[in-house]
């Protein structure tokens, strides 16, 4: 007897139409394009992070993941932790980040918020969903909110047309993956390795394996992130996956150079590698 096998509440019915993120990513994928989603930390660098968002869109991002810093980011490695700490020390708050995005010029690609559940819970589910809408963010990733705890957030998110992207990890047994893709909106985020965010010398074999397992159970876009560190690794992942998410490698270029230009150039390089694929 496996008493703990299934404690997730019944699946929310899928909305009858795709949301903005999923529509956008499906269209681009179906044109034969490999998808690129870079990650940035809201509030880092303090003065020009919204300029960075614009720059990444121009450099060929298909969507942009915006991390809302949290004090205790257990899924993140040292690079993203450092950018989060710097942003928090500079006084970034979720409300402040949303206000800056509202004031910025409209970004031509969808924005996806990535933060930890306590930020959302503290603000309140409906208020958080509405705040994302008002900031022009159409989707959310909450890495410490697995299927088991997804409600009531997913109910509030669906009601507000905010797409909740779920993660699928290499440790998941096969029978869990269909339930994850059923509940995921926008795309499904395949975790590329057993571990936290950060650059790796080699692409883990689990990255393409994760993509293959997800492609078997869904036709929604399958993107792989965590441990995808350079153009070569990105090109390798998209031999199976529909696209990649790249975070620490982008942030490190800003930490190293003190300027956003190096990150924009790096993302342009990723774009070229994916297009040559």
């Amino acid at each position, binding site marked *: 007897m496996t008493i703990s096998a299934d404690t997730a509440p019944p699946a929310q019915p899928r909305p009858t139409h795709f949301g903005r993120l999923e529509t956008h990513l499906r269209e681009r994928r179906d044109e034969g394009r490999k998808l690129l989603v870079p990650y940035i930390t809201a509030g880092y660098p303090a003065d020009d992070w919204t300029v960075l968002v614009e720059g990444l869109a121009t450099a060929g991002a298909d969507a942009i993941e915006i991390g809302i810093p949290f004090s205790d980011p257990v899924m993140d490695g040292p690079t993203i932790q450092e950018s989060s*700490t710097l942003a928090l020390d500079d006084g970034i*708050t979720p409300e402040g980040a949303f206000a800056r995005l509202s004031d910025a010029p409209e970004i031509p690609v969808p924005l996806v918020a990535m933060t930890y559940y306590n930020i959302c*819970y*503290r603000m309140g589910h409906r208020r958080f969903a509405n705040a994302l809408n008002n900031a022009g963010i159409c989707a959310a990733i909450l890495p*410490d909110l697995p299927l088991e705890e997804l409600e009531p957030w997913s109910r509030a998110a669906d009601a507000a047309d905010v797409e909740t992207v779920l993660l699928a990890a*290499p*440790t998941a047994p096969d029978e*869990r993956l269909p339930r994850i893709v059923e509940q995921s909106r926008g795309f499904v985020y395949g975790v590329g390795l057993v571990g936290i965010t950060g650059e790796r010398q080699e692409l883990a074999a689990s990255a393409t394996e994760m993509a293959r397992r997800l492609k078997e159970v869904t036709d929604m876009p399958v993107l792989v992130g965590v441990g995808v560190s350079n153009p070569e690794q990105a090109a390798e992942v998209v031999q199976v996956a529909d696209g990649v998410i790249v975070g620490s490698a982008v942030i490190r270029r800003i930490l190293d150079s003190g300027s956003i230009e190096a990150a924009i150039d790096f993302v342009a390089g990723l774009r070229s590698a994916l297009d040559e694929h």
Partner: protein
Amino acid sequence: MVDTTPAPGLDDQSMMGDPGPTGRFGKFGGLYVPETLVPACKELEDAFRDAWADPSFRAELDELLRNYAGRPSAITECRNLSKELGLRLLLKREDLNHTGSHKINNVLGQTLLAKRMGKTRIVAETGAGQHGVATATAAAFFGQECVVYMGEVDVRRQALNVYRMRLLGAEVRSAVSGSRTLKDAVNEALREWVATVEDTYYCLGSVMGPHPYPYMVREFHRVLGREAFDQCQAYLGDVPDAVVASVGGGSNAIGIFSGFVDTRSQLIGVEPAGGAAVGRGVAGVVHGSMSYLMQDEAGQVQEAQSVSAGLDYPGVGPEHAHLADIGRARYEAVNDTEVLDAFELLARTEGIIPALECAHALAWIVRAKDELAGQTVLMNLSGRGDKDVAQVQGIRDGDPEALQTVDFGDEVNGSGGNH
């Protein structure tokens, strides 16, 4: 005799019963972990439930608790201090266990479970070092590889325990992120577990974290509550009027509360004023479960401040949040000045040097002596104070570094919780 059955009711009728497969204590608890860890938490729950229902596992653990940890621990009546305070004070002597605190109960249970699950590598977090020392001890006993994360600040103020862990063969890693205390040691241990989950067992040190930890750790500490209940029956012919324990994450308090929750005894948890998660916290999610949490308006977790590294934690176990919510237990906060006075008081009057953690419980008893006048009070003396002697000496001698560990400006919050 070592007996871990609930007292006096049946488990499923107890107010501290099985939280079920969702791991909920009322609205608190749950499983808020990265997707990578979900299968491991489920595997752990299955393994724990299977082991806990297996008489041979219980017998092996009972034998270890008796012959390795030295259970049962005594109950001591404080003859001098009782007179001074005008009440009858009994101490449950968890300081007499092997490794010097209650932590060994949980650690023997978990490392025995790890062995049963075929895991050969143990990861743990520690604050003051008591859980780290206990884990390193059990890992040495079972021949398991052991890595302990400890906040950099705590590594400095608990140097003796760092050496103990190394002596026991454990690798101690400094957590250098955030506030560099227990909260950050938990973050680092969780990150390590995310990366090594396939061969590593995470031996969490308190009744916190994702399901099944709050439930499992409580069950492993139930032995101390059950013993105390039986000892009170034999010694008093009754239950005490009040049961008092310090609360950081809350494991020693959960252990002793579990023995009296279904009786008439009043239950009081005592938090540090600078880390009063129940007293001043707001519901939130960190480290895998929903509970009361010290956090700012935006949901950023705040840093706890306490003279006691072991209580320097901004959250609290979810079952404490639930016991507070339903009004079954009451939570009070004491400041560092009161704690230092209580530390010296017990040494002087009873010849027992308490850990700074449990000096919190005594500090509240001293403050509440009028309210408690004439009552029988059972306090959990969860650990011995040898590890804290150098720090307290430094504070009393005016050593600047030792003084940095004390917040003399704390407002005394005598009104209990705000829930």
